[in-house]
């Protein structure tokens, strides 16, 4: 498959009054054409910062690339000037934000907000751009699009506004769509509609999606591959099945265990103990070690390298080292692993 975006050894820091916050500490991933890659992780894990750094939307005066590159179309996005980035933003890479209630300009009719990127990136007349915008609104399922072009954001509901934001993002048929928790601010029924819409549109315009979320239920629904982030690093990456049914990193175990399940027998919901690491002074070894009951001495001393689990699946945990003792994952994870061919708990197909 064709790689459309490559993030290599990306390191990024924020210079604050308190010191240097190492928000991204060596992130590597590839994005393939037409796939949906979900990035999951708790608040402060660096998932939003990673995608914002791809778009270069972070404040220039405080955010600083320390190392690594972001390769897109043969160019390193970390090195481009702001002018060159403006030509990529909204055209080749576009973004959907978390809160549709605040991401539209309240004093501009939505028609103008949709035609703006079209007029900016394509050489077409205003009237043609308007037609494109009406078509886009129809595509995202907005009834009576012609009438609604002249209306302002406050005249739409939250779900409708997110549809408009999606229409804006898709206006120039981008190669990459970054969705930063696009359903977090919506209620559950609308969430499902928006996810359906995104899946539907992805097929129609063949774009790659980076989907940021902390909601594993959403991940299972939309993603082809999943990257789990913790403390500014990716700790595990693999296909959706590999992450859900054969997870290797203790943090992924924790995440999966803390997900409410329909068939969990004991009613108590698991919570990962402790708090995320302070990235002003990141831990030496595995950032998750302090919160992990599986931590070994080496986890406190050296950061684990990536160990390959399969061609598509990698995890950064010392537990995968040949010399590491075999540990029992949490019961809930074992239950999941029983369904995955190739895991050591596989019990054969259930039917």
């Amino acid at each position, binding site marked *: 498959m064709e790689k459309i975006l490559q993030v290599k050894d990306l390191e990024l820091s924020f210079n604050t009054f308190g010191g240097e916050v190492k928000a991204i500490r060596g992130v590597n991933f590839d994005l393939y054409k037409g796939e949906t890659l979900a990035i999951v992780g708790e608040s402060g894990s660096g998932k939003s910062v990673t995608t914002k750094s791809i*778009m270069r*939307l972070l404040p220039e*005066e405080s955010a600083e690339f320390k190392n690594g590159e972001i390769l897109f179309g043969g160019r390193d996005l970390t090195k481009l000037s*702001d*002018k060159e980035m*403006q*030509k*990529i*933003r*909204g*055209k080749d890479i*576009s*973004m959907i*934000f978390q*809160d549709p209630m*605040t*991401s*539209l*300009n*309240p*004093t*501009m009719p939505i028609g103008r907000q949709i035609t*703006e*990127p079209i007029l*900016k*990136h394509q050489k077409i007349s205003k009237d043609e751009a308007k037609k494109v915008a009406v078509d886009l609104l129809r595509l995202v399922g907005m009834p009576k699009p012609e009438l609604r072009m002249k209306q*302002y954001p*406050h*005249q739409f509901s939250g779900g409708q506004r997110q549809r408009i*934001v999606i229409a*804006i993002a898709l206006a120039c048929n981008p190669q990459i769509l970054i969705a930063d928790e696009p359903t977090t601010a919506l209620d559950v029924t609308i969430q499902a509609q928006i996810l359906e819409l995104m899946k539907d549109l992805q097929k129609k315009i063949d774009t790659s999606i980076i989907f940021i979320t902390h909601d594993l239920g959403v991940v299972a629904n939309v993603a082809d591959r999943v990257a789990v982030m913790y403390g500014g690093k990716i700790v595990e990456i693999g296909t959706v099945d590999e992450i859900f049914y054969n997870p290797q990193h203790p943090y992924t175990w924790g995440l999966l265990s803390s997900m409410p399940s329909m068939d969990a027998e004991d009613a108590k919901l698991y919570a990962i103990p402790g708090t995320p690491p302070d990235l002003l002074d990141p831990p030496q070894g595995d950032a998750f070690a302090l919160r992990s009951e599986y931590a070994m001495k080496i986890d406190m001393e050296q950061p684990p390298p990536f160990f390959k689990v399969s061609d598509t699946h990698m995890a950064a945990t010392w537990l995968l080292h040949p010399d590491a003792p075999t540990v029992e994952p949490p019961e809930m994870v074992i239950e999941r692993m029983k369904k995955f061919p190739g895991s050591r708990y596989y019990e054969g197909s259930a039917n």
Partner: protein
Amino acid sequence: MARYIGKRLIYMFITLALIATFTFFLMKILPGSPIASADKLSPEQRAVVEARYGLDQPLPVQYFDYMFGLLQGDLGISINQFKGANVTDVILSRMGPSAQIGFQGMLLGTVLGILFGMVAALRQNTWVDYGSTIVAIIGISIPSFVFASMLQYWLGLKLDLFPVALWKDGFMSSVLPSIALAMFPLATAARFIRTEMIEVLGSDYITLAKAKGASGSEIAFKHAFRNALIPLITVLGPMAVSILTGSLVVEQIFAIPGIGEQFVKSIMVNDFSIIMGTTIFFSVFLIVIILVVDILYGVIDPRIRLSGGKS
């Protein structure tokens, strides 16, 4: 919209009636008489003069006479300051210079202030920002008469670019007072726009505009500016009234025959009808500006567009 304005007009009328009533009785409570050198007149002479201006009538009669005249647009005649001249004519003739320097000062101050504020917000925490903040602080804290004197001394006397005072050379005479008047709106606009722009520039829809590929200037002017205007409009409305209707101090310093200068004198000589007339004139102006500001809100921000308006 028409219904809304109609309703507002009725309220405006009531407000004006109340202002006129209060001013009328407050003035009557004040000691002193509008009749110049009243002590030197014999009681007979005094009675003649008082009868001429209706001052011999009981207070309620005077009040209703005045209000009835007001309804017909009659502000009465000047008692001593302009010796029997029609008050409306006096105000209108004095309005010209005040309005001119006021308008020029407002325009200059607001435009420059908005510019300063925008630049400061876009270059936050650089020397440009600090420079504009210093200008704003100077504009607000140094009184206009200090500016006026400095302008007279440097630009008028030392460099001899503009006339130092008086209202004789048309536009040239209006330059220095306009600059002196511009400082306060400039400082205010710069502060308000800077604060509001910084807040707006941090909002999600600005990030989205950036994500669409909009350039820095497009973001500032197409997306942020309009959203940053609302608080400024709120303060600029009343400020425009006070400046357009004449700054007492600046008009005194530059010896401009404006409405402010005349208002001060009328109070000193107890010219009841001029005080009343000018107060009512100011009030009408202020009330109309407030209505205009309320309508402008809706024009700028569709979320506060008035019910019944075109949606």
